[in-house]
């Protein structure tokens, strides 16, 4: 018997605009594979957000709707309320979800919208050139905090998974990473669960994926993986923050 690791049918195969080593590519794969394995590819509608992943509609082999910055959960709500039987997801970065989109994600969770949100946290605004995000670490130097994030001036980074897990409507909230093959396998399991729970009609699912931004961080792709492991994981612990299995 042969086991194959190859490009998923859930991806269109179009070459991506992402920087070399950007982990968006890995996360896209995990979403695509999950949808194929759950046999949902033809039944899925994705909501793209504004950020580096704005062009994700060119890469996912599903119908997709562009959303204004931060509004993807509201757009997804509109979609799911019209088609409750479809699989609906949002794919959002940390600027989109944790900055301008905080109201929308909180209320999607609050209402228990049966959608799955893939939240890509790379502690920076990638697309616009490296500004501070709500998830930028204390002391991390970015273009709008050139001396490093100063917690006295603008607070400590936002822990989205912990925050959203407290909302009763949030059924499954997990934080994973993609900095190593082992982490990627765990991330895949969580993402697939996030879609499986949606199929079972359980409730709002969010998977926060710690990711790298080599260009924004000023590091090589390989060094960026190490930076993530050494700096982001201690502040953003991996794990399941709420799950239907606990309830």
């Amino acid at each position, binding site marked *: 018997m042969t086991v194959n690791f*190859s490009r998923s049918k859930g991806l269109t195969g179009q070459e991506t605009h992402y920087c070399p080593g950007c982990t968006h590519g890995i996360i896209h794969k995990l979403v695509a594979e999950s949808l194929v394995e759950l046999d949902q590819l033809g039944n899925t509608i994705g909501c793209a957000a504004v950020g580096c992943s704005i062009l994700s509609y060119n890469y996912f082999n599903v119908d997709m709707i562009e959303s204004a910055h931060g509004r993807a959960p509201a757009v997804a709500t509109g979609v799911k309320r019209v088609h409750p039987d479809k699989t609906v997801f949002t794919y959002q970065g940390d600027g989109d979800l944790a900055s301008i989109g905080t109201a929308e994600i909180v209320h999607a969770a609050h209402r228990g919208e049966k959608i799955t949100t893939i939240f890509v946290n790379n502690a920076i605004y990638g697309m616009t050139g490296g500004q501070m995000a709500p998830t930028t670490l204390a002391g991390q130097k970015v273009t709008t905090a050139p001396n490093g994030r100063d917690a006295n001036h603008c607070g400590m980074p936002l822990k989205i998974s912990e925050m959203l897990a407290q909302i009763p409507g949030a059924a499954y909230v997990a934080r994973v990473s993609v900095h190593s093959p082992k982490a990627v396998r765990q991330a895949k399991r969580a993402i697939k669960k996030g879609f499986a729970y949606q199929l079972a009609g359980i409730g709002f699912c969010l998977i926060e994926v710690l990711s790298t931004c080599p260009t924004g961080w000023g590091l090589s792709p390989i060094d960026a993986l190490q930076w993530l492991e050494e700096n982001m994981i201690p502040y953003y612990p991996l794990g399941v923050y709420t799950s239907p299995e606990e309830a």
Partner: protein
Amino acid sequence: MAEMRGTVSIETDRCKGCGLCTVACPAGIIVFKDNSVNAKGYQPVTVSDSEACTGCGSCALMCPDSVITVQRATPERRAVHV
């Protein structure tokens, strides 16, 4: 346990030379290709010792651009659908 053997193929012209596969490979057999520039201007990777490949698939797992295909012969395991 029967020895795992694998075959790796790389779409060289789609490789962005990020190197994530080179650190993911437990056998250390994926390396940047010496003096090589692909059609996109990146230095692509290549397999340095295909005999040593176990077909674990870590390289394919880590590749953000899905340019790596791995086939693994595993006679004693059930096929894992990917």
